[in-house]
């Protein structure tokens, strides 16, 4: 199983190391041609405006959308979640526009308001130590989206079929459970592909 981590900018190394810890082969991806033989993709934390610009400039948007259409799972953390969203509050255009969620950027405030807290994440963990850095949250979700976690009534993790999104940074702790969950999603997508004989 080969999972890419979009490496235009941000916390790439941390995702690679956690993915390897849970038994996946992980590679840092900067170019469209590197996407072709991946089974899944992680969009890391960083600055969404920077990543969005570089994604467009280096023609990565369509190939990533294509990966999604082929049923390959994509996991976005923080900025990565903003890249996945269909709608970004206060902004006309989304980046990838794949996931039926509306996100609010810097929703918890500026850096002095950044925090860590223990979270219940449905199907993942009862007590996940989550690190929020100038984090966005999900202001609203479409009917197909399953809410996995909330902080004070704000949605901070969600899943829609093969798409997984988190406001926080599971890559900043040693806790592998969220990455384990994503790798399981990738494995299921591979099994499905095999069973229909694609």
């Amino acid at each position, binding site marked *: 199983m080969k999972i890419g981590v979009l490496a*235009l900018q941000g916390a790439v190394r941390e995702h690679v190391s956690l993915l390897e810890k849970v038994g996946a082969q992980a590679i840092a991806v900067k170019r469209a041609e590197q996407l072709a033989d991946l089974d899944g993709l992680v969009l890391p934390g*960083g600055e969404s405006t*920077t990543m969005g610009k570089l994604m467009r400039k280096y023609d990565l948007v369509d190939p990533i959308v294509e990966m999604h259409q082929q049923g390959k799972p994509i996991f976005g953390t923080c900025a990565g979640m903003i890249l996945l969203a269909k709608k970004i509050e206060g902004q006309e255009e989304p980046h990838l526009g794949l996931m039926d969620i509306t996100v609010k950027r810097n929703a918890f405030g500026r850096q002095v308001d950044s925090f860590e807290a223990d979270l219940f994440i449905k199907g993942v963990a009862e007590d996940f130590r989550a690190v929020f850095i100038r984090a966005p949250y999900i202001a609203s979700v479409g009917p197909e989206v399953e809410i996995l976690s909330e902080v004070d009534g704000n949605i901070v993790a969600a899943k829609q079929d093969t798409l997984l999104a988190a406001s926080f*940074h599971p890559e900043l702790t040693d806790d592998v459970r969220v990455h384990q969950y994503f790798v399981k999603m990738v494995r299921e997508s591979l099994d499905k592909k095999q069973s229909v004989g694609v």
Partner: protein
Amino acid sequence: MRQTGTNRVKRGMAEMQKGGVIMDVVNAEQAKIAEAAGAVAVMALERVPADIRAAGGVARMADPRIVEEVMNAVSIPVMAKARIGHFVEARILEAIGVDYIDESEVLTPADEMFHIDKTQFTVPFVCGARNLGEALRRIGEGASMIRTKGEPGTGNVVEAVRHMRTMQSQIRKVQNMSRDELMTEAKELGAPFELLLQVHETGKLPVVNFAAGGIATPADAALMMHLGADGVFVGSGIFKSENPEKYARAIVEATTHYEDFDLIAKLSKDLGTPMTGIEISQIRPAERMQERGW
């Protein structure tokens, strides 16, 4: 239940900046240009280092109005500089709500003995360093991010290269030492032992390490990435060049794709004149900003 200002939160913020370019700006208009070019953060200043150098006199924290204007103009993080040791300037910047404070040798030091106790702040700090000992002293005081000092405002990358090479070579040396050599090494470097032990075990600084001080071209930025920088600060290099928008974009792309030389060649074409550089030997030792702080 919510914990703010933890090491993880403060250092994590710097982790999110990796592979990116942080640009000096002096007003909202420049901040917007930087954001549009793909900067991961901006440093709000009253004057860029080249102008501070030219103006002489005492350089202080920027007018809070300028910092606030920049904060209101962009959605990316905003950093601002406080004088070395000037914890009240730092408290003011924290009160305004800046995302990162640079306790910076670019400004005139306020204290010749002590740096700010950065552990007492919720806002994270970045500090300059010329070598491993200096970096670990700053981290010991609570810095959550390190950058090379280089020689700011010169457009001359030689000092940033020297500082990055020194740090990386010292890290490699410490990593390969036997454990019983570490205490003496800590004494020699003037570094906290516990932090040196971490470097020995992990082979890297415990925080993100950016390049800064004299970076003026896309090739300079890529050079620093090859030497092990996690990202780059560009001070005067962008808005003192002939075509800031083009320079800013090219430096961002060269930082991301620092291993793609065909691309950097393309990015470097027709950029116009870079900022005017200064040969380091022409700056009197007493006027070298890197000598400020210890």
